[in-house]
C-alpha cells in the first residue's frame, strides 16, 4: 500500500520512448511497490505496451531512467533484467511454437540451476493450471490461445520473478479462461510478487488492482487507487464504455 513508507521495487522517472521520429512515450513517471498489483490502462496506441517493453529491456528508451530495487537498470540488457527479477509475458504471448509445452516452461527456468526448485515450481504451475499439464509433450504451436496464455504465464513464473509484467493477458480469450488467469495473478500477488498489468479491459484490471495509471497519447493522465479510478467519471466515460453523466 502506498501509505507504507518504503522504496518502490520499480521506478520510472521521466521515461521517453520513440520509434524513429515518432515519440510514443513522452516522459512518464510510474512506481510499483513490493507486493502490489498495479495496472496501466488506456486506449489503443496510448503507449502501454511500449512502456512494458522498455521495462523488460527489449526496447531502448530515449530519455529518463529506470530503477529496479534501487538499482539503475536503464542500460541493462533484457537477459540481465530477467536475472535481476523482471519477467514479461509479452503481448501475443510469445510462445515458442516449435518447442513442446514442457520445453517452453523449462525455458522460463533457463537462468536457474536449482534442479529441485525448478521441479517444485513446475509442479506448482501444473496445480495452478491443470490444463497445461495435460499437454506437456505437445508442440506449443498447436495449443489454443487460452492454453498458450497459460503456458506463457507459467513460463514467466518459473523464473521466480520479483516483478511480473503482464501485457494484455485477457486479449482474445474466453471469459472462463480470463477468470482462471486472474485467479493465478491474485495468488502470486498474495505471495508477495509485484505485478504491473497492462489491460484494455479496464473494468477487469481496476477491479483487481490496488492502484492504476491511465495512459493517453504517451502520457500518464490519471493515477490513483483502483477503486477511485473505477469510480472516476472521466475514466468511466473514456474507458469503461459509459455515457458521461
Amino acid at each position: 500500500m502506498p501509505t507504507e513508507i518504503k522504496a518502490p521495487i520499480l521506478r520510472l522517472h521521466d521515461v521517453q520512448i520513440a520509434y524513429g521520429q515518432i515519440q510514443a512515450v513522452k516522459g512518464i513517471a510510474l512506481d510499483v511497490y513490493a507486493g502490489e498489483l498495479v495496472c496501466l490502462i488506456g486506449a489503443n496506441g496510448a503507449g502501454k505496451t511500449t512502456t512494458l517493453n522498455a521495462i523488460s529491456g527489449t526496447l531502448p528508451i530515449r530519455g529518463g531512467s529506470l530503477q529496479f530495487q534501487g538499482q539503475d537498470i536503464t542500460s541493462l540488457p533484457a537477459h540481465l533484467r530477467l536475472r535481476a527479477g523482471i519477467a514479461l509475458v509479452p503481448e501475443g504471448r510469445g510462445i515458442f511454437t516449435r518447442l513442446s509445452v514442457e520445453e517452453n516452461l523449462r525455458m522460463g527456468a533457463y537462468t536457474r540451476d536449482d534442479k529441485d526448485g525448478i521441479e517444485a515450481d513446475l509442479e506448482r504451475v501444473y496445480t495452478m493450471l491443470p490444463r497445461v499439464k495435460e499437454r506437456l509433450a505437445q508442440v506449443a504451436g498447436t495449443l489454443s490461445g487460452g492454453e498458450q496464455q497459460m503456458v506463457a504465464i507459467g513460463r514467466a513464473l518459473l523464473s521466480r520473478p520479483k516483478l511480473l509484467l503482464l501485457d494484455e493477458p485477457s486479449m482474445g480469450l474466453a471469459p472462463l479462461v480470463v477468470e482462471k488467469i486472474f485467479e493465478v495473478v491474485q495468488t502470486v500477488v498474495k505471495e508477495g510478487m509485484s505485478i504491473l498489468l497492462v489491460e484494455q479491459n479496464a473494468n477487469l484490471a481496476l477491479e483487481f488492482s490496488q492502484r492504476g495509471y491511465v495512459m493517453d497519447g504517451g502520457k500518464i493522465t490519471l493515477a490513483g487507487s483502483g477503486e477511485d479510478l473505477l469510480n472516476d467519471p472521466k475514466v468511466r466515460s473514456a474507458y469503461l464504455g459509459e455515457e458521461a453523466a
Partner: protein
Amino acid sequence: METLLQQIVNGLVVGSVYALVALGYTMVYGILGLINFAHGDVLMVGALVALQVIVFVQKTWPALGTIPTLLIGLSAAMIVCMALGYIIERTAYRRLRNAPRLAPLITAIGVSFLLQTLAMIIWGRNYHSFPQLISTAPLQPVDGVFITPVQIIILISSALLMVALILLVNKTRLGRAMRATAENHRVASLMGVDTNKIIAITFIIGSGLAAIAGVMFSSNYGVAHYAMGFTPGIKAFTAAVLGGIGNLGGAMVGGIVLGLVESIGAGYLGSATDLCHLPLWAQSASLQATCANGGSFELLSSNYQDIFAFVILGIVLIFRPTGLLGERVSDRA
C-alpha cells in the same frame, strides 16, 4: 552391380562430408536467417591449418605415431576455425543483424573472398599434398567394391558427430536455448538467454564441424588448396536447401542424398551419354571408327558430376523450395 555398390560407398563418404558442412549452413540460417557463404572457406582454413600443423609435428617429433599426429592437426584446425567463426560473426555479421537481408549476404561473400585471399597469401596458389596419415590402401569387403580406411573413419566419425549434435540440440539446456533463439530472439532474451552468446556458439559449433570436414576432405583426396572450400561449400549449401534449410535432420539427409546422387550419377553419366549406344549414331560415318570394337563416345564424362548438385538445387528451388524435410520457411511470428 559392383559399380552401383561402389558408387553408393563413394556417395555415402562424400555425402557425410557434405552433411557436416551443411549443418553449419543450416544452423546459422536457422538462428539468423543468413546464408553464411564464407562457411566453405572455413573448411579450407581447417584443412590447411591441419596440414601445416601435421607437417610441423612430423618434423619436430618424428617418433610420434600417426594417430596422435593427426589428432593434434585436427585439434589445431578446430581451434583455429572455431575462433575464426567467432571472429567472423562478431566483426562482420553482428552489426548487420538488423540490416536489410541483402547486406549480410553480400558481406558473407566478401568474407569468403577475404579468407581465400588470405589463405592464398599464406599458403600460396599451389596444391599441397595432404599427409596420408591413415592408410588409403583400399580394402575389398565385397568383390569388386573398394573402401579405404580413411573412408571408413569418415563414415563412422561423421555419424557420431551428427548423433552428438542432435543430442546437443534436442536434449540439453544449451540446445533448447538455441532452438528458442532461432524461433524468436526477443522472447528468448526475455527468458534470460544471452542471445548474442547463443548465436556466437552456433557459429563456433558450425565452424568446428567445418574444420573436421576439411580434414576429412583433404585426407580423402590427399590435397589441400586455398580455393578448395568453394565446391564443397556450394554443394553443402545445396544439400542444406535440399533437406530444408534451417532443419538439422534435413541437412544430414540432404548431404547424404546429394552425395549419393552425385556419385551414382557420375558412375553412369558416361555410359548414359555414350553415343555409341544409339545405333543410328554409332553407324554414322563419323563415329563408326570410334565405336568399333567396344569403343565409346561419351558426351558427358564423370568430370561433369558437379552438374548434379546444381540441377538438384534448381529442381528443389522450383518444385519444393522448403526442401525434403522442411515445411517452415517464413514463420517468424
